[in-house]
């Protein structure tokens, strides 16, 4: 795919135009990424009341049973979409899957530890912790390197 960025000082609103002969899976993925790259707020519920949480305050999303929760330093809030939807929506941001049931925010990762039984654990802000699957470690490491270098 050819990517072209045109600089125009007179441009008032940034726009993205995709020129293609047909809408392929790749095109759809790019469109989704662009649409979700601007997500700032997440609608969530807790104790039957609605809350709007800024994406930066979310440490990780986790699935428990059929429900998905967004964990902040203070509390966990139930969110609407399935975990894979959050993963897809936020992959352009600082979020990455760390196990089958957790999508975590790289920005809030503080340290990694290995337990005696060989489980790998990642600690987040507020000393919240989650297990990280060994099969995701390499991807997390690569994203961390990129994130620390380029900020995403």
């Amino acid at each position, binding site marked *: 795919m050819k990517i072209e960025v045109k600089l125009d000082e007179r441009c008032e609103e940034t726009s993205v135009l995709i020129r293609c002969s047909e809408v392929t899976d790749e095109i759809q993925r790019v469109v989704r990424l662009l649409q979700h790259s601007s997500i700032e707020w997440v609608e969530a519920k807790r104790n039957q009341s609605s809350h709007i949480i800024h994406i930066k305050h979310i440490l990780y999303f986790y699935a428990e049973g059929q429900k998905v929760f967004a964990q902040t330093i203070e509390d966990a809030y139930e969110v609407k979409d399935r975990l894979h939807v959050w993963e897809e929506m936020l992959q352009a941001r600082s979020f990455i899957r760390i196990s089958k049931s957790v999508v975590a925010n790289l920005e809030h990762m503080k340290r*990694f530890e290995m337990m005696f039984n060989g489980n790998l654990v990642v600690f987040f802000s507020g000393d919240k912790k989650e297990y990280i699957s060994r099969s995701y*470690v390499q991807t997390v490491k690569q994203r961390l390197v990129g994130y620390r270098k380029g900020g995403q």
Partner: protein
Amino acid sequence: MTRIIFQRVVFGAVFGLAAAMIHTFISIQTMEGQLVSYDWLNRCMRGYVILGVVFGPASLCFRIDKWSLLRQTITHFVIIFPSYIAVNVMNGWSKLTGEAFLSMLFIFIASYLVIWLGINFYWRMKIKQMNNILQR
């Protein structure tokens, strides 16, 4: 998952056959002038194929993400050790005396311990690298 188990069983059997061939070849080279009997060959093939069929899918327990490394290793040991002992005795490779059993148990535990420590070291290094990245 069933497909993966089946694939591992087939790979294990093929690998077992190959190991049996190598064992036979080495035996022929070392048994100067003696013939390898049909019974010996049959037992050798059967033993290695059974071991391959068990060993192949057994390693899948290391792919169960929600299990800890310790649980994966212990489960693997619990599958592998009895099947190895059973095949060994069934094929007449060794007699099941208390001494033989204990020595095999010791060798197995020692091997698993070394592998466990190796894997543990590998992951500790990985964790250290990742913590270094976080601290940059």
